[in-house]
């Protein structure tokens, strides 16, 4: 079994994140890290590998050169090899472009199963997995809270408005997992040392046979930062606070 895990590098959600004046991510404003959801995606693949020797796990990302750091972290967690699609013409790529590139790259790599996050913490489109699946003519089991992988199939559960769907599909297939899925392991010292020697391939659009001109695309026309909230009132409870809060709510017509 060969599992490809799709990994995106994102600005750390523990810090303030910035857009530049054209509405593009200001990459220098915050630390860039592997998206937490992709560590969980990798964990799902590694758990299958732990139980089934001979399973190959590849991490694949599209992003700038800095993404090497993210991929090395994934290798230190236990992935066997990494692929980075890097091309200056991909800066600011939208969902359509990103998924076309990722689909071409996974096809070049070969796979039985593709595991992605349900949505990234920066773009939050939640659409790359479905778009990659459409390019490849494959089923997608989306937003799985639980995931079971067998040699022939994948299954799991997906929360929807009004209940939970239990879904399955034969391999090859694409799945995306949520933050309810497998909690990621921490890389240990041995893993970190081994990661330095694991293969990390960099490929360009030309290697994928894709042209640099995008077709239909999404473009940002305006980006406005929210004004900071005005400071409010803070009181210490000495038995009176509940009444004062009730007064405040009444004065603001909230009760």
């Amino acid at each position, binding site marked *: 079994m060969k599992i490809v895990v799709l990994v995106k590098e994102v600005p750390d*959600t*523990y810090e*303030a*994140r910035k*857009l530049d004046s054209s509405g593009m991510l200001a990459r220098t404003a915050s630390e860039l890290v592997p998206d937490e959801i992709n560590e969980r995606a990798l964990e799902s693949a590694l758990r299958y590998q732990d139980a089934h020797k001979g399973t190959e796990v590849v991490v694949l990302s599209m992003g700038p050169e800095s993404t090497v750091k993210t991929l090395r972290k994934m290798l230190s967690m236990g992935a066997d090899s990494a692929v980075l699609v890097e091309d200056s013409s991909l800066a600011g790529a939208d*969902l*359509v472009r990103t998924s*076309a590139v990722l689909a071409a790259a996974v096809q070049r790599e070969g796979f039985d199963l593709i595991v992605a996050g349900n949505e990234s913490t920066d773009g*939050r*489109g*939640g*659409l790359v*997995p*479905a*778009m990659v*699946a459409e*390019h490849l003519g494959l*089923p*997608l*089991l*989306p937003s799985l809270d639980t995931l079971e992988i067998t040699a022939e199939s994948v299954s799991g559960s*997906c*929360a*929807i*408005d*009004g*209940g*939970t*769907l*239990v879904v*399955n*599909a034969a391999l*090859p*297939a694409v799945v995306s997992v949520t*933050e*309810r899925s497998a909690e990621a392991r921490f890389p240990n010292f041995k893993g970190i040392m081994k990661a330095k020697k694991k293969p990390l391939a960099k490929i360009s659009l030309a290697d994928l046979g894709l042209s640099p001109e995008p*077709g*239909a695309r*999404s*473009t940002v*026309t305006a*980006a*406005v*930062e*929210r004004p900071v*909230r005005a400071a*409010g*009132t*803070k*009181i*210490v*409870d000495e038995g009176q*606070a*509940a009444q004062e*809060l*009730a007064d*405040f709510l*009444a004065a603001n017509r*909230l*009760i």
Partner: protein
Amino acid sequence: MANILALIETTSTGGLKSSAAGLIGAAAQLGTPVAVLAATPGAGAASVAELGRLGAAKVYIAEGDGVGRVLTRPQLEALAGAVEAHGPAAVLVSNSNESRGVAGRLAVRVGGAVAAEAVGVRADGGRIIAVHSVFGGDYTTESTIEGGLPIITLRPGSIEERAEAAIPEVSTVTLVLAAGPAANIVELREAPAETGRPALRGAAKVVSGGRGLGAKDNFALVEQLADALGAAVGASRAAVDAGFVPQSHQVGQTGVAVSPQLYVALGISGAIQHRAGMQTSKTIVAINKDEDAPIFEVADFGIVGDVFTVVPQLVEAIKARQLAAV
């Protein structure tokens, strides 16, 4: 006016999900709302009156056996058929776990592009503009689609506009799913019917509890205050992880983003990822025993105190005022 397609979500019994009103309402901002529905054979007609009441000028029904058994593909084929039949200027899809994949696949299929998680839409001359709230509401951005069909996913509960009722023109086609790999729906486990409380998405008031509540049983305190205020119940990720409430109540970066008139945070520290889901609320109230908790940075009214002392008193004070008012 140009046709605007809205993909309608249905329940297992064929009823309309609550997202329908916002989808049709948004479509009406841009042109003539066309509701697109995938239904089991013979089941589509039952929804037409309700879709008309919500403002659909046209209803495109694709009926076939796969609906409810195969994931995504029936809705995708329905929508692709409606794109052919109605030549729309834009397609609107709910940004939900079940529907958004349809939007992504349609974009690949027809050579369109996607405006993701819009909280508003408008027509600006010949262009269609989607409004987004990104990085937890830190920025409001606008985007447009160039060179192809605009496909817009809408954040559930974010569209307040409603369309005027119409008597829809209906077309019904047969849905044929080509053989091929598919994701199968094995089972739908229905969630127990919601209590009388308002739904979190789109609620006017929200009371959320965090790890500070300490135990599942204590979460009743959050519910008591919510009920006194007529509010929806929310939670931090730590409260969800601790099993106090189901994940559907999570507010934040990876949960629901809310923007109510009133947001009350009880025993929540105010981590940046939690604030990402609530900091655009009109009025924020926080009760936390740690005077340095970051939640106070965004609170309009903060109480440094113990939730187990303050909240019962607050519930009494609210009830007393409500009694005095009648």
